[in-house]
């Protein structure tokens, strides 16, 4: 039963080995000039330890939410496109309805000005 999974296991083992080997090679051959800044978790300027109760602008959330919405559209469209022939006319109708509803939402978002950053 498990024979079918052997390629996957090989793939997993290969991937893991590749990652480990690369990191270890880097450690072996790379030059090291440590400073205190370099030892912090995020060296790009974020404070790693501070109060989590920080306020973000609502705009970030808006973009995030809109992104998820339209991203799901793609997640939906992709498998649909792959099996489009098999689904036939009904598949087309269903997707047309879906896209239409999404468009209405898009129109609403656009008119309400949620797409503008300022």
């Amino acid at each position, binding site marked *: 039963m498990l024979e079918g999974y052997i390629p996957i296991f090989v793939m997993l083992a290969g991937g893991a080995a590749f990652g480990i080997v690369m990191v270890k090679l880097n450690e072996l051959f790379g030059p090291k000039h440590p400073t205190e800044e370099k030892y912090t978790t995020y060296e790009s300027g974020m404070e790693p330890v501070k109060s989590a109760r920080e306020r973000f602008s609502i705009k970030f959330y808006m973009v995030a939410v809109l992104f998820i919405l339209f991203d799901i559209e793609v997640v939906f469209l992709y498998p649909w496109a792959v099996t489009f022939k098999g689904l*036939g*006319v*009904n598949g087309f*109708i*269903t997707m047309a*309805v879906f896209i239409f*509803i999404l468009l*209405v*939402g898009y*129109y*609403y978002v656009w*008119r*309400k000005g949620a797409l503008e950053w300022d």
Partner: protein
Amino acid sequence: MNNYLTDFWQATPIVSLAIFALLTLIVDAAGKDKPVLSYWMSLIGIVVAAGFSVASLGASTPLFNTMLAQGGYSSYCNLIFLGSAFLCIVLSRNYLERLQYHRGEFYVLIILATVGMMLMAAALDLMIIFLGIELMSICLYVLAGFIRKKEKANESSLKYFLLGAFATGFLLYGIALIYGTAGTTNLALIGKSFPQLSHNSLFMIGAGMLIVAFSFKVAAVPFHMWAPDVYEGSPTTISAFMSTGAKAAAFAVFVSVFIRTFDIGGTKLSDVLAIIAAVSMIVGNVTAIAQNNLKRMLAYSSIAHAGYMLSGIAAGNIEGETGILFYLSAYVFMNIGAFGIISWMEQQDDKKLTFDDYAGLSSQHPAVAALMAIFMFSLAGIPPFAGFFGKYYVFLAAVKAGMTWLAIIGVLTSLISVYYYLRLVVLMYFRDGQASIEEKVSAPAMAAISCAALFLIVLGLYPSLVVDIAKGFFKI
């Protein structure tokens, strides 16, 4: 495979309402600040959908590869949801104008929630149930926090959302377990193999998860904790909508899964439901006594009513189903009526919400006091109002199913409930006070509430009007 276009054409109530929701959204977005337009469009949409529902009350046909059932039982439930939504919208206009939160989206969200409810009632598949519940709930999360600058509204919205998401997790888990054991999500197929499945404990856990999720939606103990806080913080008309439409939808699903699909009579599921019903009746009624805020009182009362109706589910027989359908149609109108009157009295910043604010109302506004008294009497289950027959039928179902103890608890706790319902009537009629309604009640709102009261009296005198229709739906 037949064409989906014909299916769309046949599912007129749901489709027409959804189209109206989208149209209203477009119109609302296109024009600036004309919520009245949305108000009228949504009302028209509801009337159209109700018309299609009435036309299809008779027979029921499966659509979309037996995903949805159109007509019959679902049309009956549609009418309950639509009635609730209609009253809620009519009542909301003045209320929102007064609070300066009159927005077109409000109505769109109500209609979309109603579409979700209709999907729930029409569902022939667990996936559609899930879809319907989510559509309804997401709209309600937003509506609960609609008065967005009010702290309590935000709190209630967040609480409802978090606990709702929690419950949704269990719903999905339950569906997954049922799919895993039954091999299908189609209700009819699951129903066929229920006798064998009911010995499979994995399946039973799945069904138990469904009970948990649905009980959350109907606010039954111990999954009721959100209800008082959410009802208190939400706009009053939305509390009305949540406690009637949303609850009715959850019961519609309860009926279609646990009575129409599973034959739960005598199984462990029935025991669990009976216990939940009993605890809900006791906790709801007892806690309601200690409340001073009317919205909270009605929240606990709605928990108790969920208990009464759950005893019909626990019975799992034809009387139970018919009884619940009758109960729902009565309950929706009496509860929305009570909330509606509260919304007239209520003032900015949650003022005038306590019992004492109603003292002496009858001398200032005799008509309003009389209507409130009718709703209270009906909620208490005093004949000749519809509430009495609702209780009678579900308790009858419990007795027929051999759960006399449940009926006894029901009657005893109803007795307790009389206290807090009549307390309001006593205050309105027999205490001196300065209770008054600051602003004039609009004619449509008054008419809507009066119609609800009239409906309760008619149903109370002539219960067969609804019972005869409801009887026809049993086992499709």
